[in-house]
């Protein structure tokens, strides 16, 4: 038993691996205070928020080498390693992009300080979630993301925004309550909250029981809600349709990747290196198949661009789950690559959906003929969609190629038919997704519309979009650079 002083000492040393999060926490407070002072100057709070995210990002990069040796922080509440650091970097970049997108949107600016503070809170929660290795921290950081998200979803201040917020809140709280209930049983079954502790896995391997399965199923339900996987997905299209577009872009990436990070850790423990009596690979494969099917097939029907992206987000969760379901170290690496490509592609699409939304185009038909007038935005949007579909020459293709490769390796290792089925379904769904992802470009380029507008190609969107497009093309033409970086990540508990 450590003495109190020793514990304080270890807490103090833990702060060394916790700098970005400290920056974020301080940033939240500063933004709130700044909002009180600069009530009328949304630009300043935006700048402040961007600076906070940038600082967090820079600290992540500075400490990158230090993260290479995993260690526990704060009495093993958190685990600092390069896997979570990589995800945190993507999350920070996504936060920055969201801030840039928001500056173009007048709606959230009425409560700008609150908005940016909530954004920073989600980022902080996502940071904590990917690092968590205690069930208590998982729950707290998940709630941190969720509660802020419920409010952010309502930031369009319209009837629909409120409705989306209510649905998100009710669905989210029920799933997190179910997850918590599952956690409470896992605690009872193992006697510890630290799911990386050896006794946690030992108890689960040595005393498998129906209750363990039920508890874990409940716990997974909370994660699946967070990453918007079926069958915990019904909130997604409603929220995506109602929330402000920058917030939707944010939701499509940050909570999803954070949930994915912790899900990867958690299922790895459950699977216990294949010693588990129950086959969790089966569950993940089934959920992935279900998400792919539900997301892609429902998306075919949509008429509203953002709602369509909601279903697409469900389907993308299915693809992301493929990387976990392979249960191979290489699969995790490929998952990180795919996640990066997904984040970039998703932001390209939402950046331009936002651009067109502000011009008054939100239903699919209304995009008719926009490609002739707004050439570059439409071309960039097309590239974003191509990446989400997974066609060359974009990073989406490379990512899909990688995760299906790892799935094939998993099939050859395990020989389970469900893995093969997932592969078949995944490939078939790639085809299905082609049909709806290309619908907006189809309307934009093929249909004729009457638009009289003068366009200025030198806009903020186009500069940011060009950057992202170059990024996504780069991920195709030279994925080795990023992959080399990812390959240095050691994913093991």
């Amino acid at each position, binding site marked *: 038993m450590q003495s109190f002083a020793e514990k304080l000492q270890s807490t103090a040393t833990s702060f060394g691996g916790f700098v970005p999060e400290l920056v974020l926490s301080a940033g939240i407070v500063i933004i709130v205070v700044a909002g009180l002072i600069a009530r009328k100057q949304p630009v300043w709070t935006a700048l402040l928020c961007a600076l906070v995210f940038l600082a967090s990002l820079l600290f992540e990069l500075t400490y990158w080498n230090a993260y290479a040796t995993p260690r526990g922080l704060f009495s093993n509440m958190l685990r600092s390693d390069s896997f979570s650091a990589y995800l945190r970097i993507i999350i920070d970049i996504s936060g920055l992009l969201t801030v840039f997108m928001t500056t173009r949107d007048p709606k959230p600016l009425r409560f700008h300080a609150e908005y940016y503070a909530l954004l920073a809170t989600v980022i902080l929660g996502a940071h904590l979630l990917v690092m968590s290795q205690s069930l208590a921290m998982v729950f707290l950081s998940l709630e941190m993301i969720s509660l802020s998200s419920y409010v952010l979803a309502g930031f369009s201040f319209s009837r629909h925004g409120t409705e989306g917020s*209510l*649905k998100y809140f*009710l*669905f989210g709280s*029920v*799933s997190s309550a*179910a997850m918590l209930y599952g956690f409470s049983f896992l605690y009872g079954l193992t006697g510890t909250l630290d799911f990386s502790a050896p006794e946690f896995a030992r108890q689960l391997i040595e005393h498998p029981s129906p209750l363990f*399965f*039920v508890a874990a*199923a*409940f716990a997974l*339900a909370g994660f699946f809600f967070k990453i918007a996987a079926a*069958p*915990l997905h*019904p*909130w997604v*299209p*409603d929220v995506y349709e109602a929330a402000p577009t920058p917030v939707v872009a944010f939701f499509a990436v940050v909570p999803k990747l954070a949930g994915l990070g912790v899900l990867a850790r958690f299922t790895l423990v459950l699977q216990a290196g294949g010693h588990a009596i*129950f086959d969790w690979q089966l569950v993940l494969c089934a959920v992935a198949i279900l998400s792919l*099917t*539900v997301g892609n*097939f*429902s*998306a*075919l*029907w949509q008429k509203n661009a953002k709602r369509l992206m909601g279903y697409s987000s469900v389907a993308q969760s299915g693809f992301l789950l493929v990387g976990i379901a392979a249960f191979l170290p*290489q699969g995790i*690496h490929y998952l990180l690559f795919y996640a990066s490509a997904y984040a970039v592609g998703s932001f390209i699409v939402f950046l331009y959906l936002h651009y067109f939304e502000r011009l008054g185009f939100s239903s699919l038909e209304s995009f008719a003929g926009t490609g002739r007038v707004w050439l570059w935005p439409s071309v960039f949007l097309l590239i974003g969609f191509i990446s989400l579909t*997974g*066609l*060359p*020459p974009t990073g989406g293709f490379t990512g*899909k*190629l*990688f995760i*299906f*490769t790892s*799935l*094939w*390796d998993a099939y050859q290792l395990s020989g389970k038919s469900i893995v093969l089925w997932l*592969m078949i379904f995944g*490939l*078939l769904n*790639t*085809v*299905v997704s*082609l*049909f709806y992802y*290309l619908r907006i470009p*189809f309307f934009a380029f*093929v249909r*004729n519309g009457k638009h009289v507008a003068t366009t200025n190609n030198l806009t903020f969107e186009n500069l940011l979009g060009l950057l992202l497009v170059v990024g996504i093309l780069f991920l195709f*033409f*030279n*994925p*080795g*650079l990023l*992959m*080399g970086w990812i*390959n240095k990540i050691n994913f093991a508990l």
Partner: protein
Amino acid sequence: MTPLDTLQAHSSFFVICLGGALALPLLSFLLCFYVSEKYSWATSVLAPFLMMASTVCAAVVLYQAWNHPAFTWQRVWFSIADHTFTAGIHVNNASALMLFVVTGVSFLVHVYSIGYMAGDTALRRYFAMLGFFTFSMLGIVVSDNLLLIFVFWELVGFSSYMLIGHWNESPAAAEASKRAFIINRVGDAGFLIGLMLVWTHGHTFNIEALRALPLDPAWMTAASLCIFCGVVGKSAQFPLFTWLPDAMEGPTPVSALIHAATMVTAGVFLLGRAHFLFTPAALNVVAITGAITALLGAFAALSQHDIKKVLAYSTMSQLGLMVAAMGAGAPEAALLHLFTHAFFKACLFLSAGSIIHALHQAQHQSHVNFDVQDIRLLGGLRKKLPFTFIMFVVSGSALAGLPLFSGFLSKDAILAALVHWSNTGDAWHWVVLLVVALVSFVTVLYTFRLVWTIFNGEEKSTASLVVSEPPVVMRAPMAVLALASVWIWFSWNPFSFSGWIYNHIGAAKDFHGGFVSMASAAWVLLALAVAYASRGRKLDSRLLAQGFYVDLFSRKAIEQPTLQLADLTHRADKKWIDGFLHATAYAQVIVANLTGWFDRAIVDGFVDGAAGLAKSIGSFTRSFQGGKIQLYIFWAAFAIIIFIIWTLL
């Protein structure tokens, strides 16, 4: 292999030429876009000039690479963990020749376009996209790697979309370009899956490396069939062929390019490159698809009235022959036909374009208006357009496969390969052979029907027009292509396909018995006779006109000296010849109707049906989405409890 090795085998001059052949079309694309609006006429000098340079480079490449070890240049593209992705160039005899044919035909089409497109408002875009189109095709030709091929494959699809929809003010053109784009995407989705299967199985995309790998037949069947899906889309095979006739909405030189050298031939070329991937089971599918396409295309061509649509369906039918030959395990025969076809089909399209151009000019002067592409309105143009007539007849003869023309040689090669195939394989292989024979018969029929309808007989709508031959920039390319449609360039012996090309573009197998050659010559001449006999008949009324010709034919037979046999001969003629002509006519009508029905009901139905099935699944998955939050929670809880109970039990 490092670049150094290859430099020992090939001079740096060779490498520069290869680079030039590839880069000049791209340069043309870039430069054409940056010519200012005011000087847009300059593109019509610049682009053909650059293409000419590219053609010269390609000729040097062909000369130097021919019968040398394949030139390969490869570098690591990127590597992940223990997998290395490479990108590179592979030039063997077949790709060097293809390189030359593509650049050459493209150059001629560029020159022709100077005249044809003169005065077009979007000249810059036109020439830019032609250059890009050519570049993308060259990329497919020289890539050593399936992934790279797929990238260029998509670019070809994109640029063809731009070109078919060049006159995008016309709704039909916009619709056609959309159709081409979307149907090609359907095929490409299959291709993509095939690529993933190849990668997951072999962990490489490099074609030569794949060739060396021991591959599991079951998976390779699946992968090769998926890749074949891409071919089906790009090369307009059954059932994804509908875009090709529609694509006639584009400018005629573009059609020539699409049909002769780029786009549709890409699929066949890919089949040749990746032929080793195809297992016998997959090859059977390929052969059957090719035969069906050839048959449908040939009969559809018979019943068309639009001059360009006849040619489009004929392309489809010829592609079907090539694909069938691929399926029969004779890639060199298919490639030979690909090369011969490139010249004569380009020539045919340019001739058709010349007719259209000339008549448009004439219409413009005398202010009359009718559809110049409708062959029912044409006739007797031989006197007004003598040069075009000769060009059309020469290239048409090559298409029909008359002896002394290039088409005869390559069709002969395909027939010989199929004879060999049906002798050695399953019993049903004969059916494919018979279908192909029938197709070559029908080919003669529709080709000469076209020639006779347009150039012979009475002048109809054109009687009052003053028609003059197109300018020399348009005639010169036609002449060159027509010259390239005679046998001499492909084999010294007009009755033996086994010439310098055939023997060196693959592991040539000499199936050649004189029998096949003679039989096919006789068969084609018989078809020519039938075509002549039925030359004046309109397809709609041919059943009525039937009796007269048969009587004539029979009367001639009666006049034969042997009176005792006269009656018998008469009856035999009645029975056989009449029956045959009847059957042909009936078959034409039935198949033409069938094709139409097939096009509407099955192909569109298939596409609609697939979309419909997907949509109905979607409406089911979506039906849980009533908008009521408590219902959402209920369904989620329901799903979880069902899952839990199912696992507990």
